[in-house]
């Protein structure tokens, strides 16, 4: 069984510090939903409010339509997978998995049976008697999942469970987690600061910063149509150009940047005179190479070039301390500018977004 989760204007404060500010969203039944944000953005606090380790200062957390206020973690239909997994080190693998059943008073025979089923689900059938300390990192990961699934939760909460693994295993576990989710069909709420994890696994992602939910969308939209300056600068690489809006019509806006007028899509309803930032991805920038261009031309000195095989990364002197980066496909026919030389780059206004000035992610 699966359940939806609603955060109805949830605010959570610790003393003077507001960890979560008016989070308002609905996670559908059976959805793989991620909270993405830098550390300290409030994503773990939301997870703890859903799992029942704390209650919101304002607003309601509803699971399956039921208000959860005052209901402890042991009474909620959720199961949490901890960042450090929190497997019980003094118990065998099978005892770990069956712990949730044991405390519910399920008979030993039933427990044994259920543990065996789950052990085969995670492909550790012959390892039930081992101590968890004798397992590898990836195996422990799977035991933690099995332990959470054993209590048949309606919602599974995952708090950066892959962060302790090395890169190769992490990528492997992403595929495996997604597969498990599709098999059991329950709601997954996944917390991460790793955008790769969030974008590849999730149906939808909520990007958070400083306690505020910035945008909720699927991965493609988050990447192509960021709603705020924070999302644009946090997810993937992006080049910002700031300036005042000089013209706004037909869904496009023009800003007067240090490099001259630049045009991009205006989805956020900016009006003439507003302070704005135009974002353009490195892969959307192209070298002009002498061809005449009518708009969106940036002329700047080349600071640095990095050869990366498939493509070449070129950095130009930007408006501020940060360089403008562009990726050029390495197809041998492209003529690359020399370092120190001034060159001209252009971009398609359809691939640029103009957003209101706001907090930026520091990298």
């Amino acid at each position, binding site marked *: 069984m699966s359940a939806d989760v609603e955060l109805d204007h949830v605010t959570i404060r610790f003393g003077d510090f507001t960890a979560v500010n008016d989070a308002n969203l609905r996670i559908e039944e059976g959805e793989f939903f991620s909270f993405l944000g830098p550390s300290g953005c409030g994503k773990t606090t939301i997870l703890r409010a859903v799992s029942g*380790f704390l209650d919101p200062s304002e607003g309601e957390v509803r699971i399956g339509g039921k208000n959860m206020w005052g209901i*402890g973690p*042991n009474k909620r239909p959720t199961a*949490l997978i901890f960042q*450090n997994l929190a497997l019980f080190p003094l118990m065998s693998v099978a005892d770990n998995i069956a712990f949730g059943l044991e*405390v519910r008073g399920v008979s030993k025979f039933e427990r044994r049976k259920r543990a065996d089923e789950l052990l085969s689900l995670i492909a550790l059938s012959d390892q039930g008697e081992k101590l968890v300390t*004798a*397992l590898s990192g*990836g195996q422990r990961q799977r035991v933690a999942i099995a332990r959470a699934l054993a209590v048949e939760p309606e919602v599974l909460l995952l708090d950066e469970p892959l962060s302790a693994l090395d890169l*190769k295993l992490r990528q492997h576990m992403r595929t495996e987690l997604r597969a498990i989710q599709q098999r059991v069909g329950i709601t997954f709420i996944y917390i991460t600061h790793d955008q790769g994890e969030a974008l590849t696994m999730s149906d939808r992602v909520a990007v958070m910063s400083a306690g505020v939910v910035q945008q909720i969308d699927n991965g493609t939209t988050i990447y192509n149509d960021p709603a705020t300056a924070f999302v644009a600068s946090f997810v993937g690489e992006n080049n910002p150009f700031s300036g005042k809006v000089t013209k706004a019509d037909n869904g496009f806006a023009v800003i007067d940047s240090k490099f001259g007028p630049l045009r991009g899509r205006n989805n956020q309803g900016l009006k003439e005179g507003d302070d704005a930032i135009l974002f353009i991805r490195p892969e959307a920038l192209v070298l002009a190479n002498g061809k005449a261009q009518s708009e969106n031309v940036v002329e700047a000195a080349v600071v640095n070039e990095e050869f990366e095989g498939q493509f070449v990364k070129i950095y130009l002197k930007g408006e501020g301390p940060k360089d403008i980066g562009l990726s050029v496909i390495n197809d041998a026919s492209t003529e690359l500018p020399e370092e120190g030389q001034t060159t001209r780059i252009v971009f398609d206004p359809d691939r640029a977004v103009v957003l209101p000035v706001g907090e930026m992610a520091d990298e």
Partner: protein
Amino acid sequence: MTSKTVMRIMVGFYILLFFGYLFGPLLLMGASAFNTSTFPQVAPWEGFTVKWFGALLANSAMVEGFWNSIWIGLGVICLAVPISLAAALMMTQVYEHVRPFYYTIVVSPVLIPGVILGLSTVVFWDKIGAMVEADFDTSWFYDGMFLTIVGQSTFISAYCMLIFLARLQRFDRNLEEAALDLGATNVQVFWKILIPFLRPAIFSAAVLAFLTSFENYNTTVFTIGSDSTLTTVLSGQIRLGTKPDVSALAVIIVAITLVGATVHEVIRRREMAREEAAREAARRAEMAIDMKLAATPAAAS
């Protein structure tokens, strides 16, 4: 070469001297238990005997004190271990800014001289007894055994608490939360997660509590009243002039200590070997996974 060698010889000599100082008096005392002389001495050596061990058993005051000490030790375990466990758990939960104050209070018995703890315990309970108009002969408030258990537990609890705190430092609070999240009640978390984790510390605390109680004198001599413990009997008999049966007792205690320490060391080594084996198994499992991933690059991407 020379200065280094000289240094090494000097260091070795010093260590030898130091351990001579530690063990010499005890060895002499041990030896005096086997000398036939009626005064505990090693020189002159009058002949070998084991009769003082028999004399020890016939020393009824000593035997009675011994049993009292055993009962008091058990009483202290029953009082100090639960108290110190609660105090240690409270330390992890008490408000950050209250913690230094709390810590000062609970650790102060370690630094308060034993005679003061004993004296204050007696006058305090004497007052409580007077307040409730308890009967002097039957009431607990004037009972030497009860007062001794309470008085000793005052500071022994602090020792035990330090043991629990050391162990709790390595406790992962997430384990409690994980158990709660899986549906355990608070009481279940306590019994199934916390207590098993603390079991070695509980054992150590109980042993420490018993041994400390058994050999305590300063507090006991005030609280014991008209009863006696092994230490108060010993002290009295030594002051009044001694026979080598006291040495015989020392030999027995040293022997028990030696055996106990050896057993403790063996258990510890076995435990370390077991932990090492588990780590080794984890390492192997890790390697096996790595190899499997390397063999199937498709899974990794």
